[in-house]
């Protein structure tokens, strides 16, 4: 059997086989293709064995009902993860005033390590990774609780280094068990660590003076550029998470800069800074749409489109809402949306042509 690097590739093969079978049945019904019983038997045997092999190796969804149940399982495991993280934090808050300092510290150190051990235990026993993801989320939450509570217990000042610790922990968890959520959380921490560190080096406390957009943009740019430097075979399946996290952070900073120019290091008047960020945000969102469509990253194209529309509508609101008749404002918004629809259709067509070639 062909070798697959991950579950996504295996699921794509399953989907192709299902589409092939449906088309084959259609062609036979239309009389365009007639296989001999021997050919049909041989084909069914091969496809059946391939599907069984993929199901055993990657726990892929073979039927529509399996896909629907898998979505249900994902939602249930996400809710369970969030609820158990909240339970852990609230449990600690409930008991920490009753424990001596040494017991508090022991609890805080042991919690992420115990959750990590549970992650490892489940990863060895299940292929689906639902429970592994769940325990990994708890481990990450416990790591965040660990430094937050230690800092509170000893009245320590905030430090960007905490985000470096959480970043390393999240990324290490993600790489060890091939998990997406801890990777995204770790990459968000990378952006925050770099942004806060640059701010502190430049003598600005972010908690009191607000963020400086360029500092966090530097972190976002590093996250977007990271997949180019990582080994493709080992990390290729996660490249889109780097792009999505980095771009979402960058777009958020472009948005912040466009609504409040005082959150910038740029030595220009406030309105010029805001205008520059609007233009840069629109350009970056358009580039993301183009890149996403070209490379087949649907999420990135959607993210770019979402931010592009957001920038555009906010700018139009600021320009026209106060003086323009409301019907005209909405008419223009409608016409622009139709223009965007046309643009997205063209992009989609181009992406489809690219795939066909």
């Amino acid at each position: 059997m062909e070798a697959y690097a991950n579950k996504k590739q295996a699921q794509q093969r399953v989907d192709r086989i299902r589409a092939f079978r449906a088309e084959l049945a259609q062609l036979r019904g239309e009389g365009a293709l007639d296989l001999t019983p021997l050919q049909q038997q041989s084909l069914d045997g091969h496809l059946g064995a391939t599907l069984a092999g993929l199901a055993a190796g990657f726990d892929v969804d073979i039927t529509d009902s399996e896909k629907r149940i898998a979505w249900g399982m994902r939602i249930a495991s996400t809710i369970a993860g969030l609820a158990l993280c909240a339970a852990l934090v609230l449990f600690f808050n409930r008991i920490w005033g009753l424990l001596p300092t040494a017991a508090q510290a022991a609890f805080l150190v042991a919690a992420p390590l115990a959750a990590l051990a549970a992650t490892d235990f489940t990863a060895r026993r299940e292929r689906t990774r639902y429970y592994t993801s769940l325990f990994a989320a708890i481990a990450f939450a416990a790591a965040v609780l660990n430094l937050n509570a230690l800092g509170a217990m000893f009245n320590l000042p905030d430090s960007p280094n905490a985000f470096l610790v959480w970043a390393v922990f999240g990324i290490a968890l993600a790489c060890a068990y091939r998990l997406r959520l801890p990777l995204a959380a770790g990459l968000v921490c990378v952006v925050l660590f770099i942004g806060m560190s640059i701010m502190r080096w430049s003598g600005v406390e972010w908690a009191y003076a607000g963020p400086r957009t360029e500092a966090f943009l530097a972190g976002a740019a590093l996250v977007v550029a990271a997949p180019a430097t990582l080994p493709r075979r080992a990390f290729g399946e996660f490249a889109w998470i780097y792009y999505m996290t980095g771009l979402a952070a960058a777009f958020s900073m472009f948005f912040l800069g466009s609504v409040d120019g005082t959150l910038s290091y740029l030595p220009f008047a406030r309105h010029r800074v805001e205008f520059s960020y609007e233009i840069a945000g629109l350009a970056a969102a358009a580039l993301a749409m183009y890149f996403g469509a070209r490379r087949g990253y649907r999420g990135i194209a959607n993210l770019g489109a979402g931010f592009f529309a957001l920038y555009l509508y906010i700018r139009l609101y600021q320009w026209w809402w106060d003086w323009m008749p409301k019907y005209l404002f909405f008419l223009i918004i409608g016409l622009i949306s139709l223009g965007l629809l046309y643009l997205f259709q063209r992009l989609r067509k181009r992406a489809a042509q690219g795939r066909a070639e």
Partner: protein
Amino acid sequence: MKRMFVLGAIGIILVADAAVLIGVASSRRGGADAALRLTERELGAVAESADDSAVILFPRYVEGAGRIGPRSARLTASKAAELGIAARPGWSAAKRVFAVLELQPEAPAGASRLRAADVGLDPAALRSRYPDRSRYAVTRAVVRVGPNGEAWVNVLPESIYVPTPRVGVFRRYPAHYSVTLCYSRQGDCWVCGAEAP
């Protein structure tokens, strides 16, 4: 490869925790650089609730007395500029500094006696300028300059955790209490005594 990442995850937690605990121990080694004996006038206590068993103290300062808030004292723009904090008009800036906390001997009845008396970048220089260790403590602070040029000091920490052995004092919800806050040479602060009559 997987083993390396798992060990990395364990290692970063252990190293970070060790750094915090060793840092705290090292800061407190050799005893306190200053100790201020404060009362309910200077420290508001939030005792345990159904969801949180900790007791937290919130300092109150002369400026803004009667209000629990982070702004400990106003500062002149020229003093802020002396500390290297210059904000363009319309912009905000903030910087970590050290502040001298003064426990004033006299204050109107019921009012806080605690105020930020001075700020600077060098804790040793501040200590030499204010040598009375039962009246002045050097602690961490942030100076913020607002968009209109106004400047103020936020003394840190903005909330103080009461360690478990001293929590009992506050569980009786006393009307009057006294708390001794100790400060290290690095400006760290901790509760080193608490009692209620």
